């Protein structure tokens, strides 16, 4: 066969296969928006559930999800970034470092329900935090760590070695070099990673199932030891446990969760884009 024709066929096949990727995204978005948009009203977003979840809104679940995610990230960000700095800039390539790196990879591979059980055992029961924001956030924090350590490490690595050498060659110490040259230039990448980690845990159900989420709490949390409603768990409840649930409320809840997660990812992308344009090298 003629090589040009073969090439054409090959490219067409590759293109069609790639097209398959967008099909599920489009279908999911289409169904959820079509079924759910009618539920989205100001009242739905700002009031508590009524009639055994069959009416009212999802405000406590939105607040619950935000408090879990922000709480988890405020633990994960400093610890993740500081350990990434250690692993990238200071650690010698020895057995301990390799064990730590391997643990991070393994942490990323643990199924989310196992995190949930671990959180139940350690935070809820052993440390006696009870089913609470704190226990849920700590569980999500462990789940978020690998993402933040890995992306921060990548961001630190992408700062050119030549910047470090230029700084060190002026008699500037290693820590000052990290503090004044490496970190500021890695910051956009670190922030992008943190936000992506955040959007990943925002949609998790299993880790908060036994550690933080409540079936129904008609008021807002007042301390980190309170149980909360959370969007993913609420969605699971209303789609499996409540008979005669109005369909548009279920899809509306899914739509809100989806919009929150997409908005978080989108803000990560905008930050990256903004800094890439500002990048000075």
């Amino acid at each position, binding site marked *: 066969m003629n090589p040009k024709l073969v090439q054409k066929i090959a490219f067409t096949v590759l293109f069609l296969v790639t097209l398959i990727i967008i099909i599920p995204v489009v279908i999911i978005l289409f169904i959820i928006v079509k079924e759910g948009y009618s539920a989205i009203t100001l009242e739905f977003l700002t009031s508590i559930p009524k009639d055994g979840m069959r009416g009212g809104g999802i405000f406590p679940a939105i607040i619950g999800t935000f408090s879990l995610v922000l709480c988890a990230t405020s633990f994960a960000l400093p610890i993740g970034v500081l350990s990434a700095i250690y692993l990238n800039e200071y650690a010698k390539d020895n057995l301990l470092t390799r064990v730590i790196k391997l643990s991070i990879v393994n942490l990323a591979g643990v199924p989310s329900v196992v995190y949930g059980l671990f959180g139940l055992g350690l935070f809820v029961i052993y440390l006696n935090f009870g089913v609470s924001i704190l226990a849920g956030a700590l569980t999500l924090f462990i789940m978020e760590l690998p993402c933040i350590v890995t992306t921060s490490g990548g961001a630190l690595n992408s700062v050119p070695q030549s910047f470090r050498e230029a700084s*060190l060659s*002026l008699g500037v110490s290693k820590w000052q070099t990290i503090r004044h040259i490496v970190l500021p230039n890695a910051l956009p990448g670190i922030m992008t990673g943190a936000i992506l980690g955040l959007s990943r845990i925002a949609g998790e159900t299993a880790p908060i199932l036994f550690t933080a989420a409540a079936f129904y709490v008609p008021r807002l949390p007042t301390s980190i030891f309170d149980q909360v409603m959370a969007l993913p768990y609420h969605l699971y409840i209303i789609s499996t446990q409540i008979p005669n649930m109005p369909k548009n409320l279920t899809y509306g809840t899914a739509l809100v969760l989806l919009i929150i997660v997409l908005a978080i990812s989108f803000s990560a992308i905008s930050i990256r884009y903004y800094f890439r344009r500002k990048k*000075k090298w």
Partner: protein
Amino acid sequence: MVDKIVIKNLNCFFGDIHSIKSLNVTVFENEILGIIGPSNSGKTTFLRTLNRLNDLNIKFKKNGNVFLDAQDIYDIDTETLRKRVGMVFALPLPLPLSVFENIAYGPRRHGIKDRKKLENIVEKSLVASFLWDEVKDRLEEPAMKLSGGQQQRLCLARTLATTPDVILFDEPCSGLDPISTAKVEETMIELKKKYTIILVTNNTKQAARVSDRVAFFLMGELIEIDKTEKIFTNPKDKRTNDYISGRFG
């Protein structure tokens, strides 16, 4: 002539590669020592040993001694050593900061906070690197916006701002056009009144133009070191002659 840097029986290794072989050299105060030789002959390794930048590479090992003003450089902490032995790299490497902040960076990190003092250091360093007239109105611009030649003189000014007494130039003109090259060379000749300069260059003509003495390195060995006129007119070793007349390398 005062001995500034004395190197005694220096051997450098990167893993299994023996990149500098039993080197003995003395560098005199206020001279420009040119170092020539084909690539892979250990020139850059030699320079980076003098400010211990090689220590960043975990595979690097050395034996033998390097003395700066009669003190072993491994008895000086790296920060102090690198403040005294400045370096200008092959490619201009401005930090991603403004022109002003690039030069103030070293002094700031070494504890100078007073704005007036910093302004004074920046101006003096830029004047000394013959860049002041070109950038005095652009101090707040990002350094990356300057032309290549200006960036290289900026890097020199940044090195001068930490008040070294030795400056290492690692092929400082390899990325520059002839006019910028001429400016950097003039600057070097001016600077040797106050500083000791070691210039690694792939351009033998440049070594001939600016150096007082020239050392020829080949495969990690010092083949010959002598006054510049001597090396270029009447070298002792045949290999030196072959290299400068362009027969290899």
